[in-house]
């Protein structure tokens, strides 16, 4: 017993705690909302989380390097708009190319952030607070008040959100969800298996030490921002496919949703630690709460934000206290030898 308890890493314990929180949420709402445990609900939450997931994963990478990207929502908006426009102009563009285009545009925006942070040595919160405004302003200027409409988009894109890649029983697994999960999986695997990707964690854990250990910290931070941009771009693409109508407000506030998912997912805001599985669960948890509150008869529309804020806070508090308690228990065991 103690042996197992000792071998499990704190990270794993966090994930278990998070999973239990998710389970508790689902169980609670299933007693409150009729037909809650249904394939439909699965679709609702999975497709809605799919939009946030890539941007949250990108945010997680940046946060792991002890930085933050407040401009992600603006990048999402710019990408959704420009990709929509490009697809309107070139309806024959290959879908893969369209995704690449979206991620490319996002990566460019991320590269600007990255350059300013890594080379310009400007704290990321300042840079991205600035580009949060700048990219959005650019979009307003660029869009010239025209909206991207579904009518102008190629049919494959408009149909994409309903397309299922495969079904497990009654559960449809939609293409957009697979796309988001693929991004998660790729980044998650890279972070645990790829030597180069571990540098994100190393730099976030101790920037000075990273420099001394021969890690090119500025380059790592730069790459983190580019990746975050590209992933925000992927979110932008899914956003475009899902909502079709893109105005200048597209993605407004998404940076906060992403940060909320990351933070609930147990990624340390101080950098250096966190897992993509946690981010996945964080995003799903926040989305589940949000979606469920919408459907809960007992609370009116006006209670939703108040409850959402409190529940996020509760999740984080419980996680922190539980993690600390566990660490303390373990510390005693370890010390007594």
């Amino acid at each position, binding site marked *: 017993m103690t042996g197992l308890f000792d071998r499990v890493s704190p990270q794993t314990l966090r994930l278990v705690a998070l999973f239990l929180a998710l389970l508790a949420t689902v169980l609670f709402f299933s007693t409150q*909302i009729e*037909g809650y445990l249904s394939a*439909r*609900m699965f*679709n*609702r939450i999975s497709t*809605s989380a799919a*939009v946030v997931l890539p941007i949250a994963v990108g945010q997680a990478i940046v946060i792991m390097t002890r930085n933050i990207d407040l401009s992600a929502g603006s990048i999402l908006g710019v990408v959704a708009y420009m990709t929509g426009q490009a697809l309107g102009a070139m309806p024959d563009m290959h879908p893969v190319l369209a995704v690449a285009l979206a991620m490319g545009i996002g990566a460019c925006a991320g590269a600007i952030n990255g350059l300013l942070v890594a080379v310009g040595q400007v704290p990321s919160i300042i840079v991205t607070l600035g580009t949060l405004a700048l990219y*959005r*302003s650019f*979009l*307003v200027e660029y*869009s*010239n*008040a*025209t*909206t991207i*409409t*579904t*009518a102008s988009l190629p049919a494959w894109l408009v149909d994409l*959100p*309903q397309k299922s890649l495969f079904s497990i029983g009654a559960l449809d697994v939609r293409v957009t969800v697979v796309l988001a999960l693929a991004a998660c999986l790729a980044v998650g695997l890279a972070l645990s298996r790829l030597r180069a990707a571990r540098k994100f964690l190393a730099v976030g854990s101790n920037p000075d030490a990273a420099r001394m250990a021969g890690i090119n910290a500025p380059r790592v931070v730069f790459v983190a921002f580019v990746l975050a941009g590209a992933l925000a771009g992927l979110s932008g693409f899914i*956003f475009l496919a*899902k*909502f*079709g*109508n*893109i*105005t*200048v*407000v*597209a993605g*407004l*506030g998404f940076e906060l949703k992403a940060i909320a998912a990351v933070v609930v997912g147990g990624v340390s805001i101080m950098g250096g630690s966190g897992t993509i599985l946690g981010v996945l669960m964080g995003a799903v948890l926040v989305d589940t709460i*949000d*979606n469920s509150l*919408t*459907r809960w*008869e007992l609370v009116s*529309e*006006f209670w939703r934000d108040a409850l959402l804020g409190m529940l996020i806070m509760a999740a984080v508090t419980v996680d922190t206290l539980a993690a600390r308690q566990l660490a303390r228990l373990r510390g005693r065991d370890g010390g007594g030898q």
Partner: protein
Amino acid sequence: EPVTATPGQEVNAVLLPKFLGILPFDQANRGAQEAAAELGSTGKLEYIGPTPENSAAGQIEMLTTATTQKQHVVMLSNNAGDQIAATAEAAQAAGTKVVTWDSPIPNGAGESFFVAQVDFGSIGVVMADMAYDLAGGAGEFAVLSASPDAANQNAWIDMMKEALKGDKYKDLKLVDVVYGNDQSEESYNRALGLVDKYPDLKVIMAPTTVGIVAAAKAMQDEGLCEKVKVSGLGLPAEMVSYSLNGCAPQFALWSFVDLGYLTYHASYALATGAIKGEVGEEFTAGRMGTFKIEEDPGRPGTKRVLMGPFTVYTKENVEAAAN
């Protein structure tokens, strides 16, 4: 008899939309510019607006600045509710006229008059009627609005609730009002939330151009168009496909170009002193004909100029309007 303002005078005017970057306001600007050219104003017509996320505070700021600049008239599509009233009163006191259009100052303080796109009562009736038609005369429907703070949407919803008291609608039940904050993803999720929460829902009524497309897209994506119809206020250009495929067979709107055009004419007349802004005054507005200042029935004690009419779009006429 209607007055016609003398063209060629200097009127410095500001067209202040809720925020910049979306089509309806741009169309209004086109109309206003057209009117300004027609009237040969030697003053300037500025089209400036706040950012979407800073709309209320930004509008107050811009109205204050316009007052400082001694602009003759500010045409305001109010997004700040009554919060802007004090600023508007200060503007009037300093000699800058405030004419609202699209969305009024709810308590009317500080506003010379409101150029109403349609009669708010009748839009309430039309919404009730569209819901009635689409639901087949009976059943549940819900409203997906912009933000809880949007004055015009709130007024329309109130008017609709008023209309629903009529005998004709006794089998029609408004089950919920939710808000998508004029953001695609929130509106989309709220629309799906509605159909999940109310399994017998027949119609989603979205009196917002963002909300209606998002709801239509959501129903289409989930294959619910047969079951739940979407309606409300939408731009034909954005709605055409949903109109044709039956997800949103009916919706309404007016011309924002005309609204801008009329607003400028009325403001010009007011700023040049051709009209005082009193109830009963009539004025001509170029190609749109003659209009009259009247009591605003929806907001006792305030004045409006009623543009009207609006068009109900169906698959018969939507394609023509979309281009």
